[in-house]
């Protein structure tokens, strides 16, 4: 019963000598190369053997029959192929002469493969160039980057671009290193086969780690529908009933009412609620329509309180767009760390408060006064678990 073991290569394709050394080293430990892959190699567990490995590079992604048989007739055993690379081995005691006796000729044999590598690097570069305008927009034109980063996991949009940059860098590095190898061969210096190999954290692993972070954040982030009862005590949400006096206010199918709670990768808690009701008797003076107050609560919990001020500034900048106004005024407060108010006309109030790691943003449209609002906000804060009165 053959036992197989898989190992990540962690050696760049252009480190031909190191790959050969690594396979030789593995054979010494009893792991005989069975198949070579792009990222991993498959080994057959057996007795330790003293084997020499050589990698032959071909102009096409397969080896010609006569090429293969010429090597075999010369005493080299065929092991495996991966695109342009073909692995051969021979027991050391067989004393098989080198596959390449002329380094200059070997440099020539690498040329078609080099051309393909260069072409791939060009394609990757072209794709990145297309992405540059998008990047410029994201970094220089978009506002409130911290808000998007913390509250909307905006880093996720950068991840595919990060991938591309890593692949681009790796592609060109491979091209340059291969050219270096070619030059070395052209100068008559053969590939160092006994070179000490180092299995490095390769590009592949970096990409894997980033994908993992991405996956984790998708798993944990997100908001779900929730009821007011469920968030009571967990988040400071101001209800209309606590500030409205009209007893005929009721919900209606036509009116938007929504509560969502969840988290993002960085913010342990996020709650967004929108509540609106309509009166049966009260009307607006200016147009006679039935009174319809509404309140938005956006609550954000910071992972630690040092982040609060920076986040608040970004949050205001973000909301700045929605209300397009400059008239945010900072007030002192006995209770809150920061209190910022915008009043527009008689009916619209936009209030930002922070305390420790809690940030709340309330938008209200209705007859209640600013003071009444602030009083209620303070009450809901105190009702939260863990808050001292």
């Amino acid at each position, binding site marked *: 019963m053959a036992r197989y073991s898989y190992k990540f290569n962690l050696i760049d394709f252009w480190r031909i000598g190191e790959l050969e050394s690594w396979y030789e080293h593995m054979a010494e430990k009893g792991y005989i190369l069975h198949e070579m892959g792009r990222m991993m190699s498959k080994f057959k567990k057996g007795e330790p053997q003293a084997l020499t490995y050589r990698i032959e590079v071909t102009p096409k992604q397969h080896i010609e029959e*006569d*090429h293969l048989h*010429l090597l075999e007739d*010369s005493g080299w055993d065929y092991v495996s192929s991966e695109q342009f690379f073909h692995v051969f081995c021979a027991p050391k005691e067989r004393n098989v002469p080198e596959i390449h006796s002329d380094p200059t*000729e070997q440099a*020539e044999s690498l040329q078609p493969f080099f051309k393909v590598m260069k072409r791939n690097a060009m394609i990757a570069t072209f794709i990145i160039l297309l992405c540059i305008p998008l990047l410029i927009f994201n970094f220089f034109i978009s506002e409130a980057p911290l808000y998007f980063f913390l509250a909307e996991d905006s880093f996720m949009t950068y991840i595919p671009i990060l991938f591309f940059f890593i692949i681009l860098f790796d592609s060109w590095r491979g091209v340059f290193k291969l050219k270096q190898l070619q030059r070395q061969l052209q100068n008559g210096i053969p590939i160092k086969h006994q070179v000490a190999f180092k299995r490095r954290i390769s590009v592949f692993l970096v990409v894997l780690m980033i994908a993992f972070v991405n996956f984790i954040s998708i798993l944990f982030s997100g908001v779900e529908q929730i009821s007011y009862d469920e968030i009571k005590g967990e988040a400071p949400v101001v209800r209309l009933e606590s500030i409205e006096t009209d007893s005929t206010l009721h919900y209606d199918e036509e009116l938007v009412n929504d509560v969502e709670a969840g988290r993002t990768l960085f913010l342990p808690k996020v709650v967004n609620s929108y509540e609106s009701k309509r009166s049966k008797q009260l009307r607006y003076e200016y147009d006679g329509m039935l009174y319809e107050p509404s309140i938005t609560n956006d609550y954000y919990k910071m992972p630690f309180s040092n982040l609060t001020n920076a986040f608040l500034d970004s949050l205001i900048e973000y909301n700045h767009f929605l209300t397009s106004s400059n008239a945010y005024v900072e007030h002192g407060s006995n209770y809150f760390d920061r209190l910022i108010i915008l009043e527009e006309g008689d009916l619209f109030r936009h209030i930002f408060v922070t305390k420790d790691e809690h940030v709340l943003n309330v938008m209200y449209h209705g007859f209640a006064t600013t003071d009444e609002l602030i009083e209620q906000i303070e009450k809901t804060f105190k009702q939260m678990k863990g808050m001292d009165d």
Partner: protein
Amino acid sequence: MSYSGGPMTEAMYYVLLALMRPNHGYQLMQLISQVSNGRVEMGPGTLYGVLTRMEKEGFIRITGNDGRRKTYEITAHGKLALKTEYIRLQSMIADSAILEE
């Protein structure tokens, strides 16, 4: 590095020489070693590279292909290049009389 007249590499010269009679792969390697009295030991990878290149450039041609191996022989063009190189090398030896003193 295509051949464009002028000095030939040693590998090319011996391959053309050996292919004055049709031959293939491994036997070719052994013949080259014999002809050069063991001085030129060509690796199979090197040989294959030289054969492919010279076939493309018309110095040799494929006369047989049984799937496993290709049999090559020299062409008129190849013979001419070989002769030219031979004469050049002879001249070099003749001019080096001073080394015989």
